């Protein structure tokens, strides 16, 4: 016998609330990693608790024509992250410092490493400078590798809007990363 879909489990949890624990078992690890990448381990652990409490309270609003609850949960998590923008910014800047040294451990020799140490802080700043709705789409796409349909479900947007936001984010990043881009960041 195949296991019940998320939609079936959420449906069952309306009458038997404790069934909702299975939704946690299935998706909590994914969401904890998602929130951790964005806001760090400490913030993420608190947020994942909040996320599932909210999901449980709103479970009757879950669209049960969707088999998986994961995009819906990503959407709740994305909203929660908006309250933790400072933790996100700190983590992004820290990653910009750490990642290049992981990429090219031999600091003295590699010109590429030097280059990376200059480039990544600018990428981090550029991502930070994106409007919230564009940054959400970009990071769900680039870090979580969600398909368009899942992003649309998570953000409760038409697929076309998701695509155009992602394109705007790309264009803005390109602009912000060009040599002249720095001035534009300042003038914003």
């Amino acid at each position: 016998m195949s296991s019940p879909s998320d939609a079936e489990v959420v449906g069952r949890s309306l009458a038997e609330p404790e069934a909702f624990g299975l939704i946690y078992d299935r998706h909590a690890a994914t969401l904890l990693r998602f929130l951790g990448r964005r806001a760090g381990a400490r913030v993420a652990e608190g947020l994942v608790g909040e996320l599932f409490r909210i999901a449980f309270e709103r479970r009757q609003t879950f669209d049960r024509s969707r088999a998986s609850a994961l995009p819906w949960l990503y959407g709740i998590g994305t909203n929660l992250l908006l309250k933790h923008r400072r933790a996100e910014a700190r983590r992004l800047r820290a990653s910009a410092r750490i990642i290049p040294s992981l990429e090219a451990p031999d600091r003295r020799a590699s010109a590429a490493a030097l280059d990376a140490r200059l480039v990544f802080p600018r990428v981090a700043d550029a991502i930070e400078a994106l409007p919230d709705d564009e940054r959400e789409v970009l990071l769900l796409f680039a870090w979580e590798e969600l398909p368009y349909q899942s992003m649309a479900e998570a953000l409760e947007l038409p697929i076309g809007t998701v695509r155009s936001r992602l394109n705007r984010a790309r264009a803005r990043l390109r602009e912000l990363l060009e040599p002249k881009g720095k001035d534009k960041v300042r003038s914003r």
Partner: protein
Amino acid sequence: MKPVDLAKKLRRDAAFEPAALDRGKAALMTAIRQEGERRRRPTIVPQVPYQNIGAAVEFLERAFGFRELRSSRLVGRDGVIHHANVEFGDGVIGIGTQGAHGAISPQSAGVASQYISISVADVDAHYQQAVAAGARIADEPHDESGSIRAYEALDLEGHRWRFLQGAREMPRYERRGRP
């Protein structure tokens, strides 16, 4: 390199304690149970007075199979429990402090003025559990008319509980016409 590829390289996983997920699960299940308990408010909730509520609840759970609705427990600053609710099947009973609302425990009054009937699935198994927990038996298990099997037990403070099997509908003697 394309901007999105650069952004991808900034992806960095956080290091979690292994127990983080278990803590989250425990917190969620507690929240779920509490919500369930808040919604369980039957139309009628008998209130039963005791001198020692903590001991009473512990005994009712161990001997008779009640389950306390922990989210509704009232505890004073002195750490003494002033009120608790326990459930059994689809029923809820309040366990209150004697003296409050004019209600007195049989332990003080010397006499019980009421008893409570509870339907169970297996009255003999229930009896065994009650005896093992030290309940005083006031009436041994016996068959009654209407395919009812019942026994009666006293709790720590002398409240009388009647446990019966085979009678989910209203008792016959409630029918009109009987004296």
